[in-house]
């Protein structure tokens, strides 16, 4: 165990996986010489050389598209999209291609590709750097969608994603890169995809969240504890596959739930969580499920983002309202 920030854990995981499997290659904008604009790929070029760590021309479509070809050639590509908002430039290769390599070829080919991309607010980035697109990706069958919320998970889930035979969108919270710091197991460490993580126990209400919002929910639960409210926190970790059982179990235990997401409300993944609760735990509900979201507006300019990203206060208030119902 060693305490690390999330970005350090990601870097460690990349080192470990490249060491472990020589088919792993890292490609993207500024990932090699510069070590990534957040240093996530720092040191890889020195360790593994220019054949396996490659600065590509500035074209997200070609980064994802060429990864598919590399995969069929027998590599295990880990492309980086510098910021998730620019994945839109590659949506045709992600949704129309990457997600369907196996399906289209009926299993002849596969795409064991992990597309890494940072996203999320709170660090005053320029436009299109912070947008939360996980719901759009989760609506694309064939992709797995993974979002770590701790440094340890970042390491273990990234390892699982890279080793997974299917394409994974691995979304890293910008705000968590340096702000999240925890104990990370050394050596081979894999966190299986599809298993939610119980962050905190409680019986009055459950917060369901992913990525950095897990931290916001956790802090909200600490606030609520002061009022004598036991709030459970469930980190979904992966949206696809979804740990339906863990969601149902938590709702059954608590009877009340608040889903917290940074994405816009309309058709964000919180809606899917609510629909899943409706399917699986309807009769346990003592109150409507609350959702706390970003608003239905484009991600705003820096001086407004604190009014956009769900705050601890907003989450606590939603919990209180849910408890009153």
């Amino acid at each position, binding site marked *: 165990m060693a305490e690390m920030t999330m970005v350090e854990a990601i870097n460690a995981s990349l080192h470990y996986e490249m060491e472990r499997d020589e088919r792993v*290659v890292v490609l993207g904008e500024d990932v090699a010489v510069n070590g990534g604009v957040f240093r996530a790929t720092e040191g890889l070029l020195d360790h593994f050389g220019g*054949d396996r760590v490659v600065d*590509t*021309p500035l*074209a997200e*479509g*070609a980064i*994802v*598209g*060429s*990864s*598919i*070809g*590399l*995969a*069929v*050639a*027998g*590599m295990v*590509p880990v492309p980086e999209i510098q910021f998730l908002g620019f994945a839109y430039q590659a949506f*045709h*290769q992600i949704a*129309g*291609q990457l997600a369907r390599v*196996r*399906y*289209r*070829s*009926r*299993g*002849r*080919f*596969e795409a064991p590709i992990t597309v890494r991309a940072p996203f999320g607010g709170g660090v005053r980035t320029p436009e299109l750097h912070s947008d939360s697109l996980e719901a759009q990706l989760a609506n694309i*069958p*064939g992709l*797995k969608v993974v979002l770590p919320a701790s440094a340890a998970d970042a390491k273990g889930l990234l390892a699982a994603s890279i080793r997974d*035979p*299917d394409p994974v969108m691995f979304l890293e919270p910008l705000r968590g890169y340096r702000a999240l710091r925890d104990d990370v197991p050394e050596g081979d460490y894999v966190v299986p995809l*599809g298993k939610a993580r119980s962050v905190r126990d409680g019986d009055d209400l459950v917060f369901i969240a992913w990525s950095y919002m897990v931290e916001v929910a956790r802090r909200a639960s600490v606030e609520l504890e002061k009022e004598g409210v036991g709030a459970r926190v469930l980190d979904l970790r992966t949206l*696809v*596959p*979804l740990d*339906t*059982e863990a969601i149902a179990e938590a709702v059954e235990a608590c009877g009340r739930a608040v889903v917290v997401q940074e994405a816009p409300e309309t058709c964000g993944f919180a809606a899917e969580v609510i629909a899943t609760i409706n399917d699986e735990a309807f009769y346990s509900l003592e109150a409507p499920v609350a959702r706390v979201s970003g608003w239905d507006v484009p991600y705003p300019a820096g001086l407004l983002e604190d009014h956009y990203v769900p705050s601890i206060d907003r989450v606590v208030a939603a919990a209180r309202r849910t408890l009153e119902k």
Partner: protein
Amino acid sequence: MTLTEPRAQLHQECDLSDSELQGLLREMISARLNSTRCFSLQRQGRSGTMAPIDGAEALVVGSAAALDPERDWVLPQYREPLGLSRFGEEVVARTVRYMRGDPAGGFIPEPIRVWPQQIALAAQLPQAVGLAWGMKLKREEGVVLTYFGDGASSEGDFYEAGNLAGVLEAPVIFMCNNNSWAISTPARRQTAAASFAEKAAAFGFPGEKIDGCSVLEVYAATRRARERALAGEGPTLIEAVAYRLGPHTTADDLTRYVPAEEIAEAREHDPIDLFRAELQEVGLWSEELEAETVKEADERMDRMIAAAEAVVIEPDVIFEHVYQRPTPRLERQRAELLEGLSEDD
């Protein structure tokens, strides 16, 4: 030989044996026949939308002939697979199934180095570059050839792929089927560039414009490009100028936009007729060979169609190959589908 000087030179460059030359014509005739048969299947309601190959036979057969099926890869768009039997008859058989709407049509078995057809225009191009790049990294001796149309060349994917290939010096051949039309849009409205070949200037590798109706010219150009690639000299863009002799697909009515004279004139340059005449001239083709070729091709199609139509498709294969192992949610959905079907009974 009674060929004109340039033709004779071309034959010399190609250096193909008599039976190889005959083989090319055979494949071209079969390709057209495959396509015509699938077209009429669609008309009979026995198959789905398909894009006839008519006019592209020289460029498909000629380029495939210059490749090594054991080392090289082909990434088609959608119009070419019925002409790719050089890579294995199974490519044609699977394409017949594909057009019928059978998901297994996308499965082209090992060791055939042909990808399933690509419906999204130009989307295969960056993938071809990645594959060639991977082969280069693994020091495999081989090249990747990918087909795309004059219309597809307007997509950003074409450019991103070409540019990346140039930087990587990837062993890839971009084969542009300039058949004058993208559905109803004429090639002159796709681009103001002097030619499609010219676009290679944007990538820093050679572009060559050739007669796509001459199977030997296509063969020779592809072979040169392949040699360049294997020598580590990087990609080539080939613009093969042909003409779409049929409608865009079974769903299209070309009389709405193609001038009658234009297509009539193009038919004068039918790649099959041209090559047949050439082989006849040098005594390598006869009515018997023609009849035999057609008969064989027809019988092969009979078999393939019968096999395709005999396939029983289980509804729940819909859930296969989404992931290597289905997610719990997919399992639940599969159960739902099967339950619904059993209720229907």
